[in-house]
């Protein structure tokens, strides 16, 4: 599974939304109205799924799927 698809699945599972609701090009806040508390849980879910550590500012509610993919890919490739 590609990293972006896995990110979609992890976010959809964590936020209890359908994967298709996570639109390309829209931030998590702009697309599905994620709030800051939901982001805390979503980031923890991403960290567990990809076995990486994400700093507070690396993935935020203003991030798009592409932004998140870039951050996670760089960390997965380093390890």
């Amino acid at each position, binding site marked *: 599974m590609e990293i972006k698809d896995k990110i979609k699945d992890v976010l959809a599972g964590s*936020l*209890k*939304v359908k994967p298709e609701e996570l639109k390309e090009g829209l931030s998590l806040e702009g697309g599905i109205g994620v709030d800051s*508390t*939901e982001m*805390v*849980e979503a980031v*923890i879910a991403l960290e567990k799924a990809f076995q990486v550590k994400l700093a507070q500012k690396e993935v935020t509610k203003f991030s798009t799927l592409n932004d998140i993919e870039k951050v996670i890919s760089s960390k997965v490739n380093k390890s």
Partner: protein
Amino acid sequence: MDKIAVTGIGVVAPSGIGKRQFWANIKAGRSFIKEITRFDSSLYPSHIAGQVDDLEKYSHVTERLLKKIDAFSHMALVASEFALQDAGIDIKKEDPNLVGIFLGNAIGGWLYAETELRDLYIEGREGVSPYMASAWFPAAPQGQVSIYYGIKGFSKTVVADRAGSLMAIGYGRKVLDKDKLNMILAGGMEAPVTPYALLCCNTYGTLSQNNSQPQAAYRPFDRGRSGCVIGEGAGVVVMEPIERAKKRNASICAYISGYGATCDGVDRIHPAKDGHELARAIKMALDDAGINPQEIDYISLDGLAVDIWDDSEIAALQEVFGRRLKDIPLSCPKSMFGNLLGASGAMDLVITILAMEHKLLPPTINLEDAAIKGLNYVTGESRHREVNKALIISRGRGGINSALVIEKS
């Protein structure tokens, strides 16, 4: 103070979800007390309760929101939606600054809290859901209802043990009377059927341990009483000024016309034996309503099924109503579905309004041999009777007394 109209009712209870199902079971005198099935409670001294098992079937709440909230908020959201539908109110058309929420409860959202605390000790702080911060505390349902409907007016959560919701309703009426709001969602919710909350209720020492006969366990005012049985649920009503309700051609269920509250100030748990301060709260409610005791034709009892509580409640009624008390029908219908603690007063309001509407008094089940004789208890089955003015009593630990007077529309 002016009377306030109740124009909608929402109920989530072990006896039913939605007022039709709920009333059908209440008027039939059916018990919904059973052994707790949600978790293994077999080692608890009292392990029976009134459970709400199929809320999801009736719920409009998304999975996304459900994972963030405790059961007591979920029940409050469902009861609020029912109440708004019943009142025929489209909340989007209301001025959000002029809508308020007044809810009561006693213990907060322990199902969520204890699950996360367990994770804290097993997995460490990273194992705790970030929603914990906003899910467990007693005002969480008020917050969730306000977020769900975009309500922005003055609102309040009252925590006063079992009297919380009746006090919230009384408080809400005062606020409406001062023309601060157009309408209010008022009531209460409680979800004590969880491992830790049940433990707390057990240590409180007022629960019946008649686990072998769940349906016969809760017997308020009976000589064989052995304490109450807990239940869970939510009762919410829509309250609005009469002029506004009439202007929008709303169907008025009842009027709230009087409210009184006092404290015993004698003990951290038990009430005063003489019931004098409860009597004073009742007199305050009657004075507030501008009626005399002779006009009350039904009394909804608090009925904890503990000697000092039941006897002091009757002592208060004797002080207020004197010899006429023997003629007034008295009932404690929560014997059928459990004591909803902080939500019990709201549930009693809902039942009393339905009793007025259907001209049918709900029974106190299991009251077979009254501890104090010569009173007009409604026992066994419902009794046909028109009710025009009713008194509702709700009390809490430490001597909290509240009384509400309602009148037929």
